[in-house]
């Protein structure tokens, strides 16, 4: 019986590994905007090879000694299925699926913080984030056979062999070691060519930096006080919960929910703040248009069709609006040259509109309607400034924040967009200040796109014309990011100071 099961499972697993290998090779032939998916696929391929080698050894044992280690074969079978699952993560990461010109600069954001991290953007139905310590999954199984360090060395050599010398120096093996932590960022596939919402990726990137561990200092330590507040919100006394089992059960459930809302709220808000600190006003405008269209704008505890513990959209908008106001960007905009008045007026009008939206406190009713959320948000309300500081400290000192971008550059680029001119530079090479183009990066360009979009909203009477102009702007922005990145590399090497 064991023999039969053994043969069936062995052949099934080997067949699956063969099919998997073929599929991985096919995926590897695609064009990718970054080396990370290639390294991920190479890693999977090498794990397939290791599995096949180990299964061959097991089979030799079986033939020579008639020993059957069925449990191990079952493990290989289960892990082979997991490999297929992991492969699905990179199936929509090719250049044809993602806004490829944006990937290298966004990867640059990650590498500002963690040099060794690999980062993969994938087209999926909606925005999401996950990270994967790829090897740790397989080390459980393979680590018993191959020492983890040897496994990493083997994968390092394999990945190195995959890349050319010039690629290898750019790849993320800072200490000549194989790091297998991959951050996956998912964005809605349908929005590939619409650059405006892509800044929301900043929120997803934030998950990489903000978890309960990073924000633990913001959780109050004086639990008795907050327990008491929850009891009051429930209308209970200490005696009630000690004597009444039902009330005790309700209290415990609400306490757990309160902590859930608190932690989720802090993480979500930290990620929003991270996005605005990274992308500046563009992120505020993108959140404004994104959140206004969700069912959870004034509701807590749901997000689209999902039941999550996210803060209401209006609350989130209010927090980042405060961040924007505190940064003084409004004043800096007001002081810009009169030639840019059309754009400045439109942007300031939009900011004022968002301020009015968040001044309305309809979301508070949803928060107050439940004892768990009302207590959780009492804590969150008191921690907003601390959150700003925690997120701010995450950024390297020499990394300019999105709200500190030079507004005169953004406005000049937006003016180019008005005339359907690509916003990748503001000076031509025949001009003396050509080198000042080096001050421009993808964040100026995306913000210029948003300014242009907001200033053109008056065209909305002619809906088709507005949509056409947005499609052209999106195209120009994505191309401008590519040209700016490439041009900057060229100038850094070729244009003397």
């Amino acid at each position, binding site marked *: 019986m064991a023999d039969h099961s053994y043969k069936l499972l062995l052949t099934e697993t080997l067949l699956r590994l063969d099919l998997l290998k073929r599929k991985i090779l096919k995926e590897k032939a695609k*064009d990718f*905007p970054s080396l990370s998916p290639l390294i991920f696929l190479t890693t999977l391929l090498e794990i397939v090879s290791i599995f096949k080698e180990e299964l061959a050894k097991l089979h030799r044992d079986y033939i020579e000694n008639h020993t059957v280690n069925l449990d191990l074969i079952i493990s290989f079978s289960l892990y082979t299925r997991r490999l297929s699952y992991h492969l699905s993560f990179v199936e929509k990461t090719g*250049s*044809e699926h993602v806004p*490829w010109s944006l990937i290298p600069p966004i990867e640059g954001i990650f590498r500002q913080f963690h040099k060794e991290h690999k980062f993969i953007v994938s087209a999926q139905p909606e925005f999401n984030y996950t990270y994967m310590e790829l090897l740790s999954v397989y080390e459980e199984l393979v680590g018993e056979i191959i020492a983890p360090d040897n496994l990493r060395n083997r994968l390092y050599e394999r990945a190195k062999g995959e890349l050319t010398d*010039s*690629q290898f120096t750019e790849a993320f093996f800072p200490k000549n070691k194989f790091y297998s932590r991959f951050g996956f960022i998912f964005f809605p596939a349908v929005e590939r060519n619409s650059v405006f919402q892509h800044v929301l990726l900043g929120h997803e990137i934030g998950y990489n930096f903000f978890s309960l561990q990073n924000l633990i200092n913001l959780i109050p330590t004086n639990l008795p006080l907050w327990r008491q507040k929850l009891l009051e919100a429930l209308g209970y006394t200490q005696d009630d919960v000690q004597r009444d089992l039902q009330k005790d059960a309700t209290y415990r459930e609400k306490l757990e929910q309160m902590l859930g809302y608190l932690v989720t709220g802090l993480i979500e808000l930290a990620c929003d703040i991270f996005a605005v600190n990274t992308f500046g006003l563009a992120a505020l405008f993108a959140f404004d248009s994104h959140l206004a269209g969700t069912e959870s704008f004034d509701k807590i505890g749901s997000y689209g069709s999902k039941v999550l513990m996210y803060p209401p959209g209006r609350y989130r908008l209010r927090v980042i609006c405060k961040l924007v106001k505190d940064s003084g960007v409004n004043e800096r905009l007001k002081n810009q040259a009169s030639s840019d008045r059309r754009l400045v007026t439109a942007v300031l009008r939009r900011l004022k509109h968002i301020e009015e939206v968040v001044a309305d406190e309809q979301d508070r009713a949803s928060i107050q309607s439940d004892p768990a959320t009302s207590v959780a948000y009492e804590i969150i309300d008191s921690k907003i400034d601390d959150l700003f500081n925690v997120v701010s400290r995450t950024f390297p000192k020499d990394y300019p924040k999105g709200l500190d971008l030079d507004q005169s550059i953004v406005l000049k680029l937006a003016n180019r967009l008005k*005339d*359907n*001119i*690509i916003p*990748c*530079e503001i000076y*031509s*090479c*025949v*001009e003396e200040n050509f080198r000042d*183009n080096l001050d421009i990066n993808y964040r100026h360009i995306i913000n210029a796109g948003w300014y242009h979009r907001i200033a053109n909203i008056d065209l909305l009477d002619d809906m088709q014309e507005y949509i*056409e102009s947005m499609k*052209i702007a999106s*195209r*120009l922005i*994505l*191309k401008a990011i*590519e*040209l*700016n990145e*490439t*041009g900057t*590399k*060229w*100038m850094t090497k*070729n*244009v003397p100071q």
Partner: protein
Amino acid sequence: MSHSDESPRGEVLNKAEIKARLRSDEPSKKLIISPLLSTDQIADGAVDLRLASEFLITRRTAFSTLDIALSQQFQRNAERYQIHTYVPYGQKIVLHPSELILGSTFEYICLPRDLFAYILSRSCWGRLGLVVATAAPVNPEFKGCLTLEMVNLGEVPLTLYPGLPIAQLILHTCMQGHYDGAYKCPTGPKPSNVCSDENTEENEFWTKHVKYYPQ
């Protein structure tokens, strides 16, 4: 009648005139070639243009022909005929003998209303058999990256790298003109629009309705 401050109508712009046009603040005279990475790209009579990183590659297919008379089939076959691909800077693309690939210029061009242009191969590449444009004229007021119809007329494959200057733009002054074409602000290679709505009437007349023999 004065039509240009720098050169008489129909003349090819020289180096100084091209630079003056690039510097100009006057919208009706301003020439934009963005990003122009180096003044070395500007020569007397021409501006060198670089190869961008997006391509439409033609492939062998099972269908027998691209026939505009069968417009629906044409659309589908055209999609199957050309694959969109992207070659990062630092990577290469190989153009085989007689192969057609659509690429585009790295630079985004905006012509003022009194300039007309032609795009041609740079002679150093032309001598290796590379033709970069079969539809060479560029109308006044055109804005966008120019599509390059690249064919290798030589006998051996040519390896091309995005970023290399392979084309040149010859600029002429002209009567004031206006671009009203179908390709609005392209930023990469655009496939043919020969079966687009605007051409339907013309195509249908010449492929279906016209009768040579009397009825």
